[in-house]
């Protein structure tokens, strides 16, 4: 196939200026609030930085996973959206900034980092070979280096294809994606264990990595859906995207809503049934006092409501309902991470005030700003992909 045959109509347009301005404003407000929160309550700000760190990790590495998944599965329908996932996954470079507060204040976040606590605790002593400060920092740096490398090569090849129309780059990326998959699985599990499970170092759940994975993919999909819908409405994507493309996005989101519920319930039911004190205390903390309302709320916001919205077939093709579902899922993922980590810091009282909102504002601002900056330089559609033409003819 010559390059002429696979070429499609795409003219690059600027994003609306209001979009980047909104991002900039949110970024500034968020920055001010975050600095204020660090000045007024250093530990609490650090704890919130852990939540937003895991949230941004979810979105960015989840997006890179979607890119790799598309290559490895040979998916056609999602090709027009791949570049958006690639741009979102650029945030991988910026997440370490959100890890910095926790790394500088390990004692304020991680109970296992206290030498005197480990000295009096048999369980922590046994876990010390894994849960110690040096290894923690080393493995996290290693994971991010690996992720950066994969980002560089995967998206670099994809972007090169825009001008060269070289089909061999797709083959290279398929191989890269295959290598990325197991590494992604292991590294994401390590991130989940390090940043969320080790907040309660006595607790363990073997399904925890999968639980975080489910939320990760779900939020990455929701983020992608939201961006695709927004950009397509502004006419910034390629012409020819139909309801069938929307339906596929909606169906995938719907599937992962069920997957999350399945994994979350599996984790809960096994621990509830076995009733071992060393496992149940984690859920008991979340099932007492104000946290119990949040636990019930999680079931609704993360499963029941988005499930009900996306259940009818027309809903998966309706941009408005898709947008509502995507926003709810993104909120739910933040809620989920807050629910996972906050009770470890404040066992009895539900803490929620402007401290908890400061970081999300910063994150949204950062996301929009990054997206508008990155999209200035590169095409929003992988025009050089050999599957592009077929993708636009995609029918359910």
């Amino acid at each position, binding site marked *: 196939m010559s390059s002429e045959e696979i070429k499609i109509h795409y003219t690059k347009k600027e994003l609306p200026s209001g979009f980047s301005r909104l991002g900039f404003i949110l970024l500034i407000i968020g920055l001010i609030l975050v600095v204020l929160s660090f000045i007024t309550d250093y530990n609490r700000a650090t704890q919130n930085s852990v939540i937003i760190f895991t949230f941004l990790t979810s979105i960015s590495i989840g997006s890179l996973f979607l890119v790799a998944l598309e290559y490895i599965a040979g998916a056609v329908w999602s090709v027009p959206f791949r570049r958006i996932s690639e741009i979102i996954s650029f945030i991988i470079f910026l997440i370490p900034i959100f890890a910095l507060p926790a790394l500088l204040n390990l004692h304020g976040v991680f109970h296992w980092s206290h030498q005197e606590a480990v000295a009096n605790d048999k369980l922590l002593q046994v876990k010390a070979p894994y849960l110690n400060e040096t290894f923690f920092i080393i493995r996290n740096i290693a994971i991010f280096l690996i992720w950066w490398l994969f980002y560089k090569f995967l998206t670099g090849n994809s972007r090169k294809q825009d001008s060269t129309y070289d089909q061999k780059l797709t083959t290279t990326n398929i191989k890269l994606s295959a290598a990325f998959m197991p590494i992604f699985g292991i590294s994401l599990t390590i991130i989940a264990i390090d940043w969320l499970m080790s907040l309660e170092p006595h607790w363990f759940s073997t399904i925890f990595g999968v639980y975080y994975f489910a939320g990760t993919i779900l939020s990455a999909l929701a983020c992608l859906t939201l961006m695709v819908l927004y950009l397509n409405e502004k006419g910034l994507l390629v012409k020819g995207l139909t309801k069938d493309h929307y339906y596929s996005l909606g169906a995938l989101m719907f599937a992962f809503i069920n997957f999350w519920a399945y994994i979350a319930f599996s984790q809960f*039911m096994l621990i*509830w*049934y076995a*009733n071992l004190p060393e496992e149940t205390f984690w859920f008991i903390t979340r099932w007492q006092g104000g946290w119990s309302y949040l636990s019930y709320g999680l079931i609704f916001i993360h499963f029941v409501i988005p499930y009900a919205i996306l259940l009818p*077939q*027309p809903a998966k093709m309706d941009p408005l309902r898709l947008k509502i579902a995507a926003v709810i899922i993104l909120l739910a993922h933040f809620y989920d991470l807050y629910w996972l980590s906050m009770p470890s810091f404040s066992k009895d009282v539900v803490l929620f005030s402007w401290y908890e909102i400061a970081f999300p504002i910063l994150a949204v601002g950062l996301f929009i700003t990054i997206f508008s900056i990155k999209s200035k330089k590169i095409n929003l559609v992988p025009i050089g992909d050999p599957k592009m033409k077929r993708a636009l003819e995609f029918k*359910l």
Partner: protein
Amino acid sequence: MSEKKLYSVTALFNTPDEISKAAEVITNEGYKNFDVNTPYPVHGLSSKMKLKPSTLGYFALALGLSGATIALLFMYWTMSIDYPMIIGGKPFFALPAFIPVTFEVTVLLASVGTVLVMLFLFFKLPNNSHPLHDTEYMKKVSNDKFGISIEAKDPKFNLEQIKELFASLGAEKIEEIYYDEEEINHKNKIFEPKFIAFLFVVAIVVAGGTYFTLNKLLYMSPFNFMLDQHRVDPQAKETIFQDGFGMRPPVEGTVARGFMPYLYQEDPEKAGMLLSNPLMATEENLKLGQNKYNTFCSPCHGYFGKGDSRLNGQFPNPPSLQSEKLIQWQDGRIYHVIQVGQNIMPSYAKQLTEKEKWAIVLYIRALQRALNAKEEDLK
């Protein structure tokens, strides 16, 4: 054979693109009663034909919801109401434990039910005869051709116009389909003799197979596993003991659980001296004594212990329990009589428990005092 009627005009096309275009044109021409037959699902056809979304989904939803409800109600009734059992220290209505079952039943009922609804309501089994069945057209479209068929009942139906339209669309073969009204409208009876015979055969085969499997096949074990052990079976003869009994008597002096040996079998005076009533004269104990006395003692001794039952005069008269001799007796002496019997009175050791016997003694004492009340008792 009755006269054949026109059912539809059909056209065959070679490619999915042609059929998509044909479907679009025919829809736009305003034809309503037409159908497209293809060897495999062609994407985008339903939207070109402007088909309404299938209502099967609502059946699936209703079936799934009823599956969930049935499962939950069933488990609630069996586990919490009819036969409440504590399992693993969980509450009787342990919702998390019921969720997997509810999920399975929901999926089962929704999937199986949807298929059945599709077969019986949508495809109208067992009456699914259709004019297009067994036609040359059907053979072609289930092989490698793409067909379209406009029915004669369509309000815009006009044979010549449609043939022209098909020809202009590039149809390969245009054909009229006729059908025999009687044959098509024939209603199959479900309970035909053949079908009943079939059911009968199925029942016998299933029952026989089940019987053979459960009673024969399962016992044809290649190994004996642990069925055939050398052990002493109850009531069986056994050669390892000299007397040939498999079951052994208990060792001499063995005392059964919950059983107190009675030491004064031959010595009523000693019983009277050494035994004392362990029960307090509470209302509860007296009630128990009254109950048991009325059941076991009153038939002879009478309700008040005066020996004035209906046996009086027909038998060696039962003695009165109100005699001076009995009032003077120790509690243990009365107990002894209940335990061992006296003259023609049998032993009540087997009918009454330890507590009940002493409760009767208490009650006899109360009767004695009631009939010989002193003035100070009234206070």
